[in-house]
Each structure stands twice: as structure tokens, then as C-alpha cells.
């Protein structure tokens, strides 16, 4: 009998100008990171509306990570500063509602940090895998 090991599904929102290019660099440098990290490209990290994060969980994500330019380096000058405040409040609220805090993260990754991108994803995937499937913020109607 074969036992199916469930791998965690991770949604990574990556800003076009830094982190997405960082992911690209990780790829062209042949660095490994889990295939279950699904990247969604956004124009800037502050494009990520709190609903996007919740929707990702609804549609089956076990962890959500938002990657943007380092503070001070945002292509639009200040987008990531707003991201920082917003996501702090959102993640804190999720924690308050009893949803495991380790399922969410914000990380700053520049276009030159391919290695950091791969390392972050590996580490985050491991952390989420340890928590198991997302049960507390799941939508049964979206489960196959």
C-alpha cells in the first residue's frame, strides 16, 4: 500500500520589482525550493489586500508568505511600509482568532537575493509542514 504524504501548499505573493526577480534568480542559479510554493506576482507588496491572504487560505493554502523589496527600496517608494503595518495587524488578528501564527509571514527579498529566496521558502515550507494541514481557516466547499 502506498501512503500519500501530503505536502503543504504555500502561496507566495511576490512583488514584481524585487522578490519576483529574486525567485527568477533562484531558478537560474538552479537553487532548490519546494515545488508546492505557488508564486503570485503582484506589482508591489502593498497590492496585497487582506482578502487575498484569506482567499488563499480558503482555496487550500496551508501557508501564505508575502515578499517585497527591502524597506526603503520599494519601486513606489513607500508601498512596503504600508504592507508592513497592514500585515502586522492582519497577522496579529489571525493569531487572535486562534489561527496558527506560523502560517503567515512577510519577508523582504531583493532581486539579487536568489539564495535568500530559496532559503526562505525552504524554511517556511518546513515550518508550515510541521503544523500540518490548515484546518482552522479552511473552506470545506473548496476541498476536493
Amino acid at each position, binding site marked *: 500500500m502506498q501512503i500519500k504524504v501530503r505536502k503543504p501548499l504555500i502561496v507566495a505573493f511576490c512583488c514584481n520589482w524585487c522578490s519576483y526577480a529574486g525567485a527568477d534568480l533562484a531558478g537560474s542559479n538552479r537553487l532548490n525550493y519546494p515545488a508546492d510554493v505557488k508564486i503570485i506576482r503582484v506589482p508591489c507588496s502593498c497590492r496585497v489586500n487582506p482578502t487575498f491572504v484569506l482567499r488563499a487560505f480558503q482555496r487550500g493554502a496551508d501557508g501564505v508568505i508575502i515578499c517585497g523589496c527591502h524597506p526603503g527600496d520599494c519601486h513606489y517608494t513607500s508601498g512596503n511600509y504600508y504592507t508592513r*503595518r497592514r500585515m502586522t495587524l492582519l497577522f496579529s488578528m489571525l493569531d487572535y482568532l486562534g489561527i496558527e501564527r506560523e502560517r503567515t509571514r512577510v519577508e523582504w527579498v531583493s532581486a539579487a537575493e536568489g539564495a535568500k529566496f530559496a532559503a526562505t521558502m525552504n524554511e517556511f515550507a518546513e515550518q508550515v509542514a510541521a503544523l500540518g494541514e490548515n484546518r482552522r481557516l479552511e473552506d470545506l466547499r473548496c476541498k476536493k
Partner: protein
Amino acid sequence: MQKVTRDILIDRAAELLASGMVNRVLGWRSGEFFYDVVPAVFRSEADMRDGFVFDDFCGCNFSKYLVKESARSDGRILVFLKPCDTYSYNQLLTEHRFDAEKTYVIGVPCDGMLDIGRIKERVGEGVIGIEAEGDELIVKTLYDGDKRMKREDALPDRCRHCKGKKHVAFDELIGEECEENDENASGRFEGVAELEAMTSEQRYFFWQNELSRCIRCNACRDVCPACTCEKCVFDNPKSGVENKAASDSFEEKLFHIIRAFHVAGRCTDCGECSRVCPQHIPLHLLNRKFISDINGLYGEYQAGETVGSRSPMVDYSRADLDPSEAIGKREE
């Protein structure tokens, strides 16, 4: 009991109506039961004498009604605001939701309102009258005669932890203006702290229990003075969240997180959402969580204290902490 009586308010409104200063009055009208006070627009003194009330059940905050009401006619509309209501009034002005020149605010003092839900919890159904005696209430009931309870136990949460009884906006004041009461307001975050002290699992079950009772009547959204968008995502049939799906705990959480998040930094903690919830869901615990996080991380901020102040959510500082550090710091 309120120290200011209905007659004092009607007399002053009648003068202003007669002088042409205002052409209508936004006030409280008694509803089907004496405790079902509803907001209403009065056009004449006679109309006010007939139906206007001012008593312990006038919790309703009129600020939001001004958005639509003040646009209906050219004249000024008189509005009675309690101290806590004036914060919402300022917040709406900050957001340019109506023109202050079209309103005339009479600040009325407030001795704390009563929550009929809390009273019924103690005495049961069939409440036909309430009298005050010192710190106690004598509740007359249809089935069990008179019952006594402490007034304090009948106060809604927002009055128990009143932000302060000083009006922050008014054209004139009636009655005596009280000083701010910080001591009282400091209890505001007790409920939040209690929850924060629980384990993640306990919190999860607490909220599961609370939020699963939500019937998605949208009353909390409709009443909120910070929530005045003309189109709402929760009314969009394509959003997948416009309705209640009884079996789905995700949708409940999404609605509540987004409702509270949407007003984060603009919520004045007026307590209207918890007041109107027919399911008695402690919505203030969500709003106050955001307020306490904002205060703790980005500096004390009270929405609506002054007109034009900038909410911390549309602001930033280079020194802000990353989410993981910030949440860790809060815990210490």
C-alpha cells in the same frame, strides 16, 4: 435615569425650528416597546411632543444618519449627539462624508445607556417598565412582578468602559459637561487581554463559538459610522461572501476579519456594532484588538478626536517593526 429630560431638548429644538435655524430634527422616537427606541426625523414641534424620547435606551448614534439625511434638503438638520457619538461625527467629517454647515449639533450629556439584552438576561421576558432607585433598577415584568438589579449590570460594554464624557464636536451644549474619565476607559482592553492570555486553541474555540452564531444580517456593518462605502463587497453576489452559508466557518471569519479590518484606524470604538448585533456577538473584542495593536505599536490614536487627523493605517514610519517582531513584542 438621564439628568436631562426630553422636555428640555424639545423646548430648545422648538426654538431652533421656529427661528428657521434648522428645518428638521434627527432624534429618538419610541418604538414598539419602550426600550425599542428608533432614530427618526421630526419636522415640527408637535411631532416631537408626540413621539420624541430621551431616556436610558437612546443608545443609537446618529452620526452616520447624517450622511444621507443632510443631503436630502438644503436647510440645516439639528442632531442630538452624546459625547461618544461626537467622535463618529468628527471621523465622518474627516472623511468628507457630509458638510458640517448643513448640520447643527446639540451635545447632550449621557449618564450611560442601558442594554435591554443584559436586563432580559437577568429578569427574563416581558419587561414593561423600568424605574431607577439609586444604584439599582426596579424592572417591572409582566409575569414575575418587580425585580431588582444593579444598574451597573445593565450597562452595555461601551458605557461600562466609556471613553470619556466630553463632547469633541458641538454647536451648543445642553446640560453639564463632564470631565473626561480616563480611569474608566482604561478597562477597555481587559477583554482583549484576557483573550490574548489564552492559548491559540482556546481562542480558536472561543471565536468559533461566537462567530458561528452570526446570521449575517449585516446590521453591524450597516450601523457602523466608519463603514459608509456606497457599494460594499459583502453585497456583491459574485464575491461569494454576500450571504450566510450556515455550514461554513470560513465565511464567518472572512466577514468578521474584513469588517473589522476595514475600519481599523477609523473605528472610534463607539460600540454600535455590538449594540445592534441580534446574536450578541462581542464585536467590540475585534475592533478593540485592532485599536490596542495600533496604540501599542504605532502610538496612541483615538479616531475622531479631532477633525482631519491622519489614521495610523494610512501612515508609516521607517522604524516600524516587521510583522513577526511586532507580534512577538506585543506578547512580552
